């Protein structure tokens, strides 16, 4: 096995599980997650020369994963702005006992630019700087998105009600046009 093949095999061994979990949280689907994970490693192999610092291999793989996922999305998705705007007050009820499906439903209803950083945040594997680099936005933007995304999850999971039928989003892959309300900032 040559050097590159050994390195690739090593990357698969070390990161396949975490990458799969990230892919699952992005796509909400086991099948899509596996496809995405495979695509990540095949892309990494094809673009091996882009990895100049092997200590950053993990971040690099996750960046590939996110980019590959974004390519597959047929349309940008978002939720109605008011749901992200209405941050619960300090005396909001504590979390009820939600399960994995309810969590994934809540994540699915987040726009990707909020979902990715919040999932990476909860993996506890990446610094804010690494998350910002993966998404190619400033750290301040990541902090802002995280705050809004966590507030959204807090409200959704505290009530543990099924998603609104009128929500335009049940799946990250839902096609069709969507409009970002002005109150959701997309600034870099």
């Amino acid at each position: 096995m040559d050097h590159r093949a050994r390195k690739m095999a090593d990357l698969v061994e070390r990161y396949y599980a975490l990458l799969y979990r990230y892919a699952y949280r992005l796509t909400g689907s086991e099948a899509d997650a596996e496809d995405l994970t495979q695509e990540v490693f095949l892309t990494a192999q094809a673009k091996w020369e882009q990895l100049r610092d092997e200590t950053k291999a993990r971040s690099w793989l996750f960046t590939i994963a996110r980019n590959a996922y974004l390519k597959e999305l047929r349309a940008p998705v978002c939720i109605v702005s008011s749901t992200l705007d209405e941050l619960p007050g300090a005396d909001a009820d504590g979390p009820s006992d939600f399960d994995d499906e309810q969590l994934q439903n809540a994540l699915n209803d987040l726009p990707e630019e909020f979902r990715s950083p919040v999932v990476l945040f909860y993996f506890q594997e990446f610094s804010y700087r690494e998350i910002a680099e993966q998404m190619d936005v400033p750290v301040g933007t990541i902090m802002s998105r995280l705050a809004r995304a966590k507030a959204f999850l807090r409200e959704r999971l505290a009530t543990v009600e099924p998603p609104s039928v009128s929500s335009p989003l049940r799946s990250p892959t839902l096609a069709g046009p969507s409009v970002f309300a002005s109150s959701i900032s997309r600034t870099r």
Partner: protein
Amino acid sequence: MNCQTAQQTLELARPDHPEGAAIDEAAEHVKGCPSCRTAIRRQEQLDQRISELCLDVPVPMGLKERLLVAVEAASHVDDGVVRGTSPSVARVANSVRAGKASVGTRRRWLGMISLAAACVVAAGLGFWSIWPNSPSIDLDDVASLVATDNIGPEHLAEFTHFGNGRLPQFPATMITRMLVDPARRLENDVALYFFKVTGPRRTVLNGRLLVIPKRLVKLSDVPTAASFLAGPTTYKTGYCTTAWVEGDFVYVCCLSGENELHRLMPRGAAAI
């Protein structure tokens, strides 16, 4: 600092938080604010629960192995050079590459490589082209040649009929509706069909079906199986293959993926 700001600051508190001073200020506020302490505690419980769930995603069994196989299979084609094949094919392919350093597109690459590979097959199959009735085709060699994603129908000439005038005959014990017509000529009397089928998780599996007159196959290679999947399955990098005899023809079927050949079994047929 007010309660909302303090809570929002602390819920993102981590050692790498860019505003350490704000964290200190928020912590100071929370010390003296019972409602903030309650809210922070609830948020920490929520964070812990979400974090546990985010990480508690079962990884499909065998995923690592499938990924390693996929990566290894992809590594067999590097810069358009077919590696990991027989030395003769690799030498020819590399000499083609060296001689055509200015070749541009991958398509031309693959065309040259497959032609080179076809030449090697012809050379390896050897004298049957001079003595067409000599049984010398090695099934493993031809299977290895086609069980790759590098060859497509566009690289090979159309196959019209065998040397004795007969047309290729579809096997009766395998699904054939997906075979891409017409067949392609791998060498004088070897017909190759390309096809695709849907695999697990909506993947696309690449398939090859070789139709070879039995009289041309090495006697030791003629399969004993008399129907599709009645005989053993062999594994090549990224492909499963099986061979069998029906009438005057030997069939070799290659399908990418991990043992998905059963998808080509007609309904109602006994699975092996």
